[in-house]
Structure formats: C-alpha cells, structure tokens
C-alpha cells in the first residue's frame, strides 16, 4: 500500500479500472469471424411465422381495455353473422350431416336445390313425402290459385318453407329452411331419427309431437286409385244403369258386386249383360 500522501481512491475510481479492461489481441478478429457466420445464418434461415405475432403481444398487453373491447366487438359481430347465416351444427340429422361434407362453396346455393339433392340421395321413392317435390326448384309452388298462370309459365316462384314460416309467424331464416327440409326427408316415426335430431331419446316422443306436422304429407302412391277400380266402375256403369247415372262407382251396390264378382267373371259376362235406358237384359 502506498502512504497517506497519495490522493484518495473512491469506488468510482475503482470502477474506472474496469473501463480500462481490454480483451487480448486477436479477440476482435475472431469475434468478427463468428459474427459474420452468425449473420449469414440469420440471413439464410427462415423465421417462423409466429415470431412476428409474438412481437405484438407486449403491445396488446400494454392496452388491455381497447384490445378487450375490440375483441368483444369482433366476437359479437362474428356470433351475430353466424346466427344469421344459420350454419348447421354438428350432430343433426343424417341428410344435413351429408350436406355438411360438401364444400363450403355449395352452402351458398339455394336451400330448395340442396333439399332436392338431399332427398334424391337419401330417401327411397316409396318414402318420398309429397311436400318434398314442392321444395325442388323444378316444381315451384304458387302463392295462391288466383295469381297462378300455368299456361304461359309466368307463375311466381314462392319458397314453400318461407310461406310456411310466414304462415306460422316466423322469420323465414335459412336455418328454418334446413329444419323443414330435415323434417320432410326424415322418417320421424323411428326412434333413431328422433335420437339423431335431438340427441336425447327420452326427451322426444316422435309419434305425438311431430306427427301433426307431417299430417299433410301423404304417400303419392297411396293417393292413386288402382286401375282395377276404374275398370270395375266402367263395367258396373254398364251393368247398373242407376249407378252409372249417378256416376258413383263406390255405391253400396257396386261394392257388393265388386266383392262378389271377380275380374275373370266380369270379363266373361260383359257380352251377356245388356242395358239400356229402361231395361236390363241378360243373355244365357
């Protein structure tokens, strides 16, 4: 140690010694080489996409209130748009699930067209409800008999689901259309369909609640009279003049005759029976 004649040494003076520390010779050349190599690697390597997003996090954290308000607004708008678009959810009926597998572009098509495709693809002809062809674009439904003009083909196209929704007092949203299509093409009598629709078999009684909605839906084959009935009615009109005059082929007498006479016997007896305005003749 030096004597007390020397100037005082403070902590600042000691720290100035550190300022004078120098690395050994050759250090900076090695430093530059390594830095150049790292620089080249940094230029060549592709930075991941989330690096740029990661830099936004501090800025977002710094302003939590505006960011939160903006996020809430965006979520609200998106939720509202989703609600309005009526996008089908997962777990609904099989036809809708099949429709969900189609590309997103097809969701922009009209619902009747989708319904026609779904019906054609999924339901056999004997189960085809009468209301479904009316949903197809090839079979437009007229708004009222008075406004229709089938002759010139200028009848106004009316969406049956929209008309149904309007009559029921609902807004004709596209989600309602999808629900209507599902109801139309799904056999609601089966418990599987009820389970597919609502997920809870115990909470839904298929035969009671929704049967009334399907009441107007009839099998078109069931509504057609068999050809034999028409033929019998024609023969009976000749055989029974009173019944023919009335024109009622389903009268009590004709019913009894129909039950008694088979088709073969009727064919054989055609030439033996004769009828005129005031007489009835039988040839033997």
């Amino acid at each position, binding site marked *: *140690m*030096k*004597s*007390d004649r*020397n*100037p*005082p*040494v*403070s*902590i*600042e*003076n*000691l*720290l*100035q*010694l*550190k*300022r*004078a*520390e*120098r*690395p*050994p010779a050759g*250090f*900076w050349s090695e*430093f*530059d080489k*390594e*830095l150049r190599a*790292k*620089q080249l690697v*940094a230029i060549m390597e592709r*930075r991941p996409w989330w690096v740029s997003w990661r830099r936004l996090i501090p800025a977002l954290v710094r302003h939590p209130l505006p960011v939160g308000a903006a996020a809430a607004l965006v979520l609200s708008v998106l939720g509202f748009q989703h609600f309005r678009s009526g996008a089908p959810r997962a777990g609904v009926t099989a036809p809708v699930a099949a429709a969900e597998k189609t590309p997103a572009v097809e969701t922009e098509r009209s619902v009747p067209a989708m319904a026609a495709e779904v019906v054609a693809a999924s339901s056999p002809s004997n189960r085809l409800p009468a209301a479904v062809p009316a949903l197809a674009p090839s079979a437009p439904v007229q708004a009222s008999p008075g406004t229709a003009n089938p002759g010139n083909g200028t009848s106004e196209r009316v969406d049956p689901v929209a008309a149904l929704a309007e009559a029921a007092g609902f807004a004709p949203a596209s989600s309602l259309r999808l629900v209507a299509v599902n109801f139309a093409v799904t056999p609601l009598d089966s418990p599987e369909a009820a389970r597919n629709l609502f997920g809870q078999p115990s909470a839904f009684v298929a035969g009671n609640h929704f049967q009334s909605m399907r009441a107007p839906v009839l099998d078109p084959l069931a509504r057609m009279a068999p050809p034999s009935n028409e033929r019998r009615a024609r023969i009976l009109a000749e055989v029974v003049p009173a019944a023919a005059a009335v024109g009622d082929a389903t009268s009590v007498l004709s019913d009894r005759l129909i039950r008694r006479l088979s088709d073969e016997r009727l064919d054989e007896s055609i030439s033996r029976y004769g009828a005129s305005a005031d007489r009835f003749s039988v040839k033997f």
Partner: protein
Amino acid sequence: MVGCVLEAMKVLGKTLVATPERLREADDDWNVVRRVQAGEVAAFDQLILKYRTRIFGVVYNLTSNREDAADLTQDAFIKAFQSIQRFQGQSSFFTWLYRIAINATLSYLRKNRTRSFFSLERIDESEPVSKEVIEALTDKTGVERDAYVRELQERLNEAMQKLSINHRTVVTLFEIDGLSHQEIAEIMDCSVGTVRSRLHYAKQLLQAEMAAYLR
C-alpha cells in the same frame, strides 16, 4: 463559489441528459441506419465497428465472462440487424442497440444464475485514469504490482456479482460506460428516479465490499 456551483450544475446536467456529442452521434447513426434500411447491408458493418467494443464492455461487466460476453454481443448485433427495418428513429440507435444487448444479457443471467466462472481481462495501463488509480493504490512494481492489480480485479468482480442484476446494470452503464441517467432509464425502461435510487444503493454495497481498497 459561483464557479463551483456552475461546475456542479454542469456535471449534474451531464448525468441527467444526453450530451451534444451523443446527439450528433445519434444523427450520424440514423443516417447509416437509413442506408441499411434502404438495402445497403454493408453499411451495418460501420455500426458494428463503432459499437462492438462498448457493447462488449457492458455485457462483459455484467457477466464477467469473456466467452459469454462475446456470444451475447454477437447475438445483439444479429437481432439488431434482423429488426432494423422496424427501427423508426424514435430513440437513438445506440440506445436501441444497448436495450437489445442488455435485455439479452439480463435474460441470459436470469437463466444462468448459478454460473460462477469469471474471466479477467488485462487492464490497459496506457490510459491515464487507470494508471493514476493504480499508482494511487500501490507503489509496488513488476510482478508484485501485477499480482496486486489482479487481486483488485477479482475483488471488484466479486463485488459486482454480489449486486442484483438491475443494480449491476445501472452501475455498469453509469460508472463504466458513462451513460446519463436518462439514457439508462430509457434502456432499462424505468424512471430516472429508479435509476438514481439503484445507483445509490449499488454504490453503497460496493463501498462496503471494497472498503479495504478505498482511502
């Protein structure tokens, strides 16, 4: 009396705000940065040559390890090079570069708290300040003098490493690198009062540790 007050105010102002030399330096740096941003990548070498010694010195005094300091300094320049397109000149380039280097160093030190391997650099006694301090501390010569200086360096490094990371950073930037309180506050993203408080506390601790070498 008046002269002493003016001198004190001058020193106080120097510690609080950036000096005119520093402002001129910042303008020059901004011109170089704009050239780099325009696509002249080679211009970044000027910034490396200008700041590598200072950045290395700061990082070395924080880590007390030469290899770590070299790696962290290189990483700081690489990060600055990668991000230079986002530098808008709102602060001076050296403040921005210091911030990158110190943040990387602090992150490294927090991850490697248990590391205790220190390296010593040679003191350049050609600088008048260091020569005066060493001569004031000892009248020994030759090998004894060198041993004394190394012992002093080791004790100083140990005392620095006993400080917390934030206190060590403030002492390093102010006493060793000569930055103002305001510049340190910008770099460390804290207030000037916090910088002063940390500096005062750190000096008290260092004085207690180095009491045997003070007079």
